[in-house]
């Protein structure tokens, strides 16, 4: 770099740029949070759904699955699982309930979590709620997630 571009100038670009774009990020964050109620399906965020989210978390479902594309890539996307299972919470519950304890020889298998009926309902309601989030361009691209 030539002498005409001094260390002082580089430093000013750093401080100026960092502060400016950090403030922009804060501004955009305020705007995003304000506009979320239009898309985030919060009208259907019941206590049952919140309990389902907690179950989702404490069983580390994200360790295998993606949810709206984020998570691990070992098992199917679940952001649209409710739609994929024919908009049936019963079908989702039946799948989770029927996982074999010792897995399936040679194949990937979901563990058997021994959920109670109440917990199964909470999880299914959580997945239904996430499916109701209005994502841009209705992501994922198709039913397979």
């Amino acid at each position, binding site marked *: 770099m030539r002498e005409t571009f001094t260390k002082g100038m580089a430093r000013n670009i750093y401080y100026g*740029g960092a502060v400016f774009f950090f403030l922009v990020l804060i501004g955009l964050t305020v705007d995003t949070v304000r506009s979320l109620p239009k898309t*985030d399906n919060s009208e259907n965020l019941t206590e049952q759904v919140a309990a389902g989210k907690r179950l989702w978390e*404490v*069983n580390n479902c994200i360790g295998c699955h993606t949810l709206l*594309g984020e998570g691990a890539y070992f098992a199917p996307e679940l952001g649209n699982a409710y739609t994929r299972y024919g908009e049936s919470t019963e079908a989702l519950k039946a799948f989770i309930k029927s996982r074999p304890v010792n897995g399936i020889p040679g194949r*990937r298998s979901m563990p058997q979590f021994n959920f109670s009926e109440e917990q199964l309902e909470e999880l299914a309601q959580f997945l239904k709620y996430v499916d109701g989030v209005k994502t841009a361009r209705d992501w994922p691209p198709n039913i397979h997630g």
Partner: protein
Amino acid sequence: MKYESQAVAKLYFIASIGLFAGQIIFGVIMGMQYVIGDFLFPEIPFNVARMVHTNLLIVWLLFGFMGCAYFLVPEESERELYSPLLAKIMFWVFLVAGSLTVAGYLLVPYATLAEITMNDLLPTMGREFLEQPTITKIGIVVVVLSFLFNIGITILTGRKTVITLVLLTGLVGLAVFFLFSFYNPDNIVLDKYFWWFVVHLWVEGVWELIMASLLAYVLIKVTGVDREVIEKWLYIIIAMALISGLIGTGHHFYWIGTPDYWQWLGSIFSALEPIPFFMMTLFAFNVVNKRRRDHPNKVAVLWALGTAVMAFLGAGVWGFLHTLAPVNYYTHGTQITAAHGHMAFYGAYVMVVLTVISYAMPIINGRVAANQTAQKLEIISFWLMTISMVFITLFLTVAGFVQTYLQRYSDEPQPFMVVQDQLEMYYWGREVAGVAFLIGLILYIYSFFAKGKEVEAIKD
């Protein structure tokens, strides 16, 4: 070693390398589970192996960053570390807390771990990379704050250099943004939005400050190039990192229920994110070419150049590959993401820590550089690990392209598991490359114990 207290870094480096080995072993286990689905099931389900793999990475990089800081801060500040004792105590606190957490992942079901650690009081568990029990998270905050206090006083009461101030800024940012891990709303969109304030603003924000300052420090030491020149580069690199990376966070806000304008903002700004990494490559090669001395620690120079190149490829090129919204619409959450994640973490953060370790460890042990045999072995391990990582990335990239096409783009999209079965060949390739990486790592560890002809000290 100019200051006695720099030696405290050794503990941190040893722990780093040990946990790194653990991380890779679990990586190889997961790679096997991708091809033999019931491997170690139900004893170690995939999600547990993944949690151990990613959490060990985060913890050993934190150990690594702290070790690097403890080594370079006294020398840059021209004074002893404020409290070597505090550094030692916090080392053991962090090691015990980290080990107990990993043992918890492996020994009891995750839900039981949540119960034992009273997750209900302040639920923070079960989100990707932030799986640690709340109590562990609090422990991390305590350890990081003590560390910041320790190096902060050392830096602010000693000679202030651009390197130490940038490093301190990066480390303070690391601590501040980690606090978002305690915010876990029931609203999934809000949860995801602020989760990225930890994950993105770490790895595509403040960690880049840490990385650039560490690299600049080693380059000053091994090339003897004028500090003024290096500091100018450092400022402009981190300026570009933050200018592109802050709004670049938007590339995570395309499909999670956030407003559409993020598709434009995220695409434009994250398209600029390769620039700082490209500049880092120019910078590293430039100063090495202009070097005023030939440092006897050849392998540290190799690591420094390797870091710049691999960070540019992994974070820059592979990031750009899927960052534009119209592309990401199809690739989001596929093996493409995994490919990028692997090479970016290795190239940027793993390699920069290994660069400093390579430079600092011989000095802590009272030599200017490791003996000739040890350096040769370390150079072989550098190439073995780096080339293996290139292959891991290539196999995952091909798997990701095929997956994206079959599952999302073709006229007749196929279900997830049907597609996964067709990727088996690439996953085998990745597993073989993973084993090669592990062999490289074993060789790397062995190189610290190799005996050989000592190198001669430099004459300035």
